[in-house]
């Protein structure tokens, strides 16, 4: 009973606040109209920009409140704001479909919303007096109206998605370019240089052979060593590009192979059957490898575990360690790298690492049917 009374008192507070919101909307709408009219004499431009910013702030606040009232959050629809001079900013704001919907909401909230909010206040007072009747009909109607106008439209959703994809693609392209540069440099300074040295040694040995067999022999054994070193460098390089065991055995085998060579015991659990699409395998392998390396380097763990599972075309990978915890994805480049790798495939990383441990990296990666077949299967390669 008391609880119900509390609920109803809260409803009254919300209704009164709604009147405030609605009035603020009306005021902002008036600013907006004035600003737009003043654009011809230039002063209007900063007024409009400032007003839109305030509108967004108000709308966000409103989204949160209405979301709480209706029991499900309302997503924010805004694209990232354009930087630059005032004119660029205005152009950016006008291009965002959410700006237009916000304006519609301003009008609706300032008129119909205001009326509903007034009714809601009266109703809330009556609700308090007649507690046995169902409360808050007008407030609920007000909340529904707000949600209809404030939730992102299909157009906003698409625009947001395009923005995300553009960002992750740019990151992928950058990472790939950097990766190629690294490979080029490694080959140039490593294996290639050693092969040049090898060729020179062989040529010298050829010259010395008749005159000084002893010197020729020394040169030949130097040449042999150079070729061994070149091979070792190429091996390391290949492992970094696409580990052969991943090609041979797929994700589970490669992760098992990984778990065997670390300095810390690692348990591997998996319910994967068969092979995943090659790009997914590769992204997943490097994400797990990075997670493992990160834990070994920073956590001081004595025991680790890796769990791989596949459900509804969603690959989930969990790397746990019993180390000291306190891993922060916003600081560590390792964790950021994992998140970047996964985001290229619409995957995500979640880190749980309280100080004192344990640390858990939960990674998900959509796979199979959602990806176009980009590579031939290994069977025919």
């Amino acid at each position, binding site marked *: 009973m008391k609880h119900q009374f509390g609920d109803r008192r809260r409803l009254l507070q919300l209704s009164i606040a709604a009147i405030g919101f609605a009035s603020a909307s009306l005021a902002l709408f008036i600013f907006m109209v004035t600003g737009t009219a003043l654009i011809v004499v230039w002063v209007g431009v900063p007024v409009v920009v400032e007003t839109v910013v305030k509108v967004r702030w108000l709308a966000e606040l409103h989204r949160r409140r209405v979301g709480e009232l209706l029991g499900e959050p309302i997503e924010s629809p805004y694209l990232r704001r354009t930087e630059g001079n005032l004119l660029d900013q205005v152009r950016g704001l006008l291009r965002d479909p959410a700006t237009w919907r916000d304006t519609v909401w301003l009008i609706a909230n300032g008129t119909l919303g205001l009326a509903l909010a007034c009714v809601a206040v009266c109703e809330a007072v009556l609700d308090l007096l007649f507690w046995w009747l169902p409360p808050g009909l007008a407030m609920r109607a007000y909340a529904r109206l707000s949600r209809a106008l404030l939730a992102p439209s299909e157009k906003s959703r698409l625009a947001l998605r395009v923005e995300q994809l553009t960002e992750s693609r740019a990151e992928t392209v950058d990472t790939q370019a950097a990766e190629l540069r690294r490979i080029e440099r490694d080959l140039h300074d490593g294996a290639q240089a050693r092969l040049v040295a090898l060729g020179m040694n062989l040529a010298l040995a050829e010259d010395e052979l008749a005159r000084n067999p002893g010197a020729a022999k020394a040169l030949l054994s130097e040449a042999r060593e150079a*070729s*061994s070193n070149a091979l070792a460098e190429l091996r390391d390089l290949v492992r970094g590009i696409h580990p052969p065991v991943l090609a041979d*055995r797929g994700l589970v*085998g490669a992760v*098992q*192979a990984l778990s*065997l060579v670390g300095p810390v*015991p690692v348990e591997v659990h998996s319910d994967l059957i068969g092979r995943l699409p090659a790009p997914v395998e590769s992204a997943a392998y490097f994400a797990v490898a990075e997670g493992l390396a990160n834990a070994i380097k920073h956590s001081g763990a004595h025991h680790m575990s890796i769990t791989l599972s596949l459900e509804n075309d969603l690959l989930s990978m969990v790397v746990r360690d019993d180390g000291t915890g306190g891993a922060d994805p916003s600081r560590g480049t390792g964790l950021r790298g994992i998140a970047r790798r996964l985001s290229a495939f619409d995957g995500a990383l979640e880190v749980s690492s309280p100080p004192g441990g344990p640390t858990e990296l939960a990674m998900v990666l959509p796979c199979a049917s959602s990806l176009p077949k980009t590579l031939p299967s290994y069977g025919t*390669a």
Partner: protein
Amino acid sequence: MRVVLAEDLALLRDGLIRLLEANDCEVVEAVDNGPSLLRALTTHRPDIAVVDVRLPPTFTDEGLRAAIEARAQVKGLPVLVLSQYVEQLYARELLADRSGGVGYLLKDRVFNVAQFIDAVRQVAAGGTAMDPEVVAQLLTRRSGDKPLASLTPREREVLEAMAEGRSNAAIATRMFVTEKAVSKHTNSIFSKLDLPPSEDDNRRVLAVLAYLNG
């Protein structure tokens, strides 16, 4: 010694044939893919198979699979696997049947002809020859409370050399001690790892296996 060779790159195949035949080996058949390898091994039953891990048709671990399959059919068939890279996972799989006669080496080990031929002989005689890189990977691991932890540093060194396929005589030369001292170490290793007295070769294999699984 009769050898079956599996290597898909003609350049390397010819080189290996030349190298083996220059060292008293007769290459009875040289194949370039997995299925032919399995057939050749089961029909010729050679003294040793020298096999490249990656072979057609899949270009993955076809050679390794064929070798393991052949050993399932012809028990204890000696196999020396060559590869551009080594994985502990594969070393364990090769040794899993505990019957010895297994080698797993990087292809570059061929450069040192004497050591390579030594490894071929070891494996053909039922011993093991693991690449130093497999052994080195193991050194990075912490050995917990396993029986391996009770080995003295000297004994570990001997066990590593055994894993690489060195004979007692070779180990003695490498460690600058007498062969008798080495055999004292090996006996101590066998008893610490709880390996009952049996044919020495077999115990060596089991000791190496314990080492790889540690």
